[in-house]
C-alpha cells in the first residue's frame, strides 16, 4: 500500500498531543499566566492595604495619645480617675511595673512634635497590653489574639511624668488569607476556560484554512475561502486565496496549451485516419491504423492527464456495485476476462465519470499485465475499498510507489502505452478525495485499491447529508 492510512487518533493520543497544539499552548499559557498574575496582584494589593492600615493606625494612635495628654492638662484628676476605672475606649492606665525600656524613636518624635513637649512611645504587643486577661480563664472560643496592640506612652509634663496606654486599631485582617486555595483554583479554572475560548477563537479560522488547503491539495477544488475573522487571519486567507488563484491560473494555462496542441493534432490525425481507408494493401493498412491508434492514445492520455486536475464534473451519489458490474460487463463484451466478484451494497458521493475513467485504466492495466481482472469492493473500517486484482507478474516492491509517476516505465512494462494510465487514474480519483494504492497479491498478481474515505460514504438506508 502506498496510500497513507487515515489517521484516527484515540482520546489518549489527542490528550498527549494537546500541549503541542496551539489550543493546548494557549490554554496552558493563559491558565498559568492568569494564576500567576492574579496571585501577584493580590499580594501587591494586600501589601498596599496593610501599609495604609498601618499608617492610619499610627495616625489614630497619635490622635488618641494627644487627646489624653490634653485632657490631663485640662482636668488632671478626672482624667486620671476615668483612666484608672478603665471607662475610656481606647485608653487606660499603664501598668506601674512597666519600664520605658525601648521607646520607638519615630513615634516618640512625632508625638513630641504634636504635644510641644518631650514624650516617649513604646509599642507593646496585645499579650502585654492585656496581661490582666491572661491571668484569668477565658471562654473556650476566645483568646487574646483579636485584642489590639497598644502603645505605652510617657509624657514629660515638667514636674511629673504622665504614664498611660492607648490602644491601636485591631488588625482585622489577621485571619484573612487572601491568596489561598479557593482563589488559586478558581483563577486556574477561569484561566483554562478563557484559554479554551481564546484557542477556539484563534484556531477556528486556522481550521477553516486548513480544510480549504486540504480540499485544494487533495481534491483539487478551487473554492476561495470566505475572507472573515480577525485582521491577521483575513490577511492570511487573502494570501491563500491569491496563491490558490495563481495555481489555478497556472493549471488553466497548462491545460489550455495542451488542449490547443492536441486539438490541432486531432485534425491531421483525423485526416490521416480517413485517408488510411484508401490504402489498398490490407496488411499495410492494418499496421498503419495500429500505429495511428497508438499515437492517438498518447495524445489523448496527455490531454487527460493535463485535464484531470481540473475536472468540472459535478458530484453525484452513485451505487458503487452498479459501476463495477457495468465496467466488468462492458469489458466482457469485448471478450476480456473481467469479473465482478463481490459487491458491497454501498452508495458513495463521487464524480462518476472520474471514477469510471480510473476504473477503466486499472482494468486496462490488469488486462495488459495479467490477462484478466477481478473487480470487488468491501468496507475497511469506515472506508470503502474498490479492488482491481489480476494474476499477472505483480511488481517489485520498490517499484510500487514509482508506478504512479507519469511517463515512468517499469521493468515489466510492455512496449506500448504512454505509462501514464496509473497517474491519470490517481488524478481522477483525487478529484473526489479518494486515493489509489498498489500492492502485490498473495499467490502472485497485483492488487490496485481505490480507497474512498468514510466521509463520502452513504451506507444503504442511512442518510448522510453534508
Amino acid at each position, binding site marked *: 500500500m502506498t496510500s497513507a492510512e487515515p489517521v484516527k487518533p484515540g482520546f489518549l493520543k489527542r490528550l498527549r498531543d494537546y500541549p503541542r497544539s496551539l489550543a493546548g499552548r494557549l490554554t496552558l499559557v493563559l491558565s498559568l499566566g492568569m494564576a500567576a498574575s492574579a496571585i501577584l496582584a493580590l499580594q501587591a494589593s494586600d501589601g498596599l492595604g496593610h501599609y495604609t492600615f498601618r499608617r492610619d493606625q499610627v495616625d489614630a494612635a497619635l490622635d488618641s495619645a494627644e487627646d489624653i495628654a490634653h485632657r490631663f492638662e485640662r482636668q488632671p484628676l478626672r482624667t486620671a480617675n476615668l483612666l484608672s476605672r478603665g471607662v475610656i475606649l481606647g485608653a487606660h492606665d499603664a501598668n506601674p511595673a512597666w519600664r520605658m525600656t525601648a521607646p520607638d524613636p519615630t513615634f516618640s518624635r512625632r508625638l513630641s512634635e504634636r504635644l510641644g513637649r518631650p514624650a516617649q512611645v513604646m509599642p507593646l504587643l496585645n499579650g502585654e497590653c492585656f496581661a490582666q486577661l491572661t491571668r484569668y480563664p477565658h471562654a473556650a472560643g476566645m483568646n487574646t489574639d483579636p485584642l489590639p496592640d497598644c502603645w505605652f506612652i510617657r509624657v514629660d509634663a515638667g514636674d511629673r511624668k504622665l504614664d498611660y496606654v492607648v490602644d491601636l486599631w485591631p488588625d482585622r485582617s489577621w485571619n484573612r488569607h487572601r491568596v489561598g486555595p479557593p482563589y488559586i483554583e478558581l483563577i486556574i479554572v477561569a484561566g483554562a476556560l478563557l484559554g479554551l475560548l481564546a484557542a477556539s477563537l484563534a484556531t477556528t479560522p486556522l481550521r477553516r484554512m486548513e480544510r480549504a488547503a486540504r480540499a485544494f491539495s487533495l481534491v483539487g477544488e478551487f473554492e476561495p475561502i470566505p475572507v472573515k475573522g480577525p485582521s491577521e487571519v483575513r490577511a492570511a486567507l487573502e494570501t491563500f486565496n491569491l496563491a490558490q488563484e495563481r495555481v489555478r491560473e497556472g493549471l488553466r494555462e497548462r491545460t489550455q496549451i495542451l488542449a490547443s496542441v492536441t486539438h490541432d493534432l486531432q485534425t491531421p490525425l483525423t485526416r490521416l485516419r480517413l485517408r488510411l481507408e484508401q490504402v489498398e494493401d490490407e496488411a499495410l493498412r492494418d499496421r498503419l491504423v495500429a500505429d495511428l491508434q497508438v499515437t492517438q492514445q498518447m495524445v*489523448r492520455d496527455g490531454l487527460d492527464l493535463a485535464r484531470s486536475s481540473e475536472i468540472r*464534473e459535478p458530484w*453525484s451519489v*452513485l451505487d458503487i456495485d452498479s459501476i463495477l*458490474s457495468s465496467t466488468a460487463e462492458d469489458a466482457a*463484451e469485448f471478450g476480456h476476462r473481467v469479473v465482478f466478484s463481490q459487491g458491497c451494497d454501498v452508495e458513495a458521493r463521487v464524480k462518476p465519470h472520474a471514477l469510471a475513467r480510473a476504473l477503466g485504466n486499472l482494468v486496462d492495466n490488469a488486462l495488459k499485465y495479467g490477462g484478466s481482472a477481478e473487480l470487488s469492493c468491501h468496507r475497511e473500517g469506515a472506508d470503502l475499498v474498490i479492488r482491481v486484482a489480476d494474476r499477472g507478474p505483480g511488481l517489485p516492491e520498490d517499484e510500487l510507489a514509482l508506478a504512479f509517476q507519469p511517463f515512468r516505465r517499469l521493468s515489466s512494462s510492455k512496449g506500448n502505452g504512454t505509462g501514464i494510465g496509473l497517474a491519470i487514474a490517481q488524478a481522477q480519483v483525487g478529484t473526489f478525495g479518494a486515493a489509489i494504492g498498489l500492492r502485490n497479491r498473495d499467490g502472485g498478481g497485483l492488487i490496485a485499491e481505490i480507497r474512498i474515505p468514510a466521509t463520502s460514504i452513504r451506507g444503504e438506508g442511512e442518510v448522510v447529508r453534508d
Partner: protein
Amino acid sequence: MIPQSDAPEGRIIVLEDDPDIRELIAAQLSREPQRVDSVGSVAELRTCLQGDPVDLLILDLNLPDGDGLDICRDLRAAGHQGAIMMVTAREGPIDRVLGLELGADDYLTKPFEPRELLARVRNLLRRSRVFDGAAGQGGQRPRVARFARLGPWRLDLHQRRLVTHDDRLVMLSSAEYRLLSRFIEAPNQVLSREELLPERSATVAFDRSIDIQISRLRHKLASEPGGDELILTVRSEGYVLPGPIAFE
C-alpha cells in the same frame, strides 16, 4: 455542393471547415443511399438548408464563421427536424452533455474510426425513422429529451445511466443501455430475443445471454421501490416494456 447519388433516399449535409476531412467524410458516406452535400461554412449551410429536407446534419464545432453549438441551438429553436451529429475534437463528458443538451442527437470525437462514423450515421437515420413513426402515433419522444421516465427511475439518455428521484445514480453497462433504449423506442411492443439483440440474431435463439442481461437489468431496476416488474416476460415470445414512456 456535390451531389453523390443518382436516386437518393434522403439527404445528409456535412459541415466541416477542413476541406480534406470534409471530402473524406463524404467519401465514407458515398456508399450510403442518401444524397450527401458538403459545406465548409455556416453561410453555405444556410443556403444549403433552403433546399430539400435534411435527414442528418454532421456538424463540426469549430467553424470559421460561427460555433457549431450555436448553430445546433438555432436550428432546434427554428424547429429543425433532422438528426444532428456533432463531430468534434472537444472531448470530455461536459462537452458531450452540452452538445446533446443543445439538441444534437449524437456526439463523436475526432479522430474517429471510419466504421464508427458509418455505424452511428446508420443508427441515427434508423432512429429518425422510429421517431417519425412515433410522431405519427402521437409524437412521444421530443428530440431534445434528456430523460425517459421508467417507474421510479429516470434514464439519462445523454450519459447512459439511471437516476433516482433524489438524484442518486446507478450505472448501466453498454449492453443494458442498448436493451433499455430498444424498449423505450418501442413501448408496449413485445420484442423477441432477435429484435433485442440483432447483432447476434444467428445464435440468440440458442444462447441464454439475452436472458442473463434482462435478469441483470431487472435486478438493477428493482433496487428502487416500485422498480420491479418494469420489464415483463411474454412466454415464448420475448419481453415487453409497458408504456407509455414520458420524456423530459
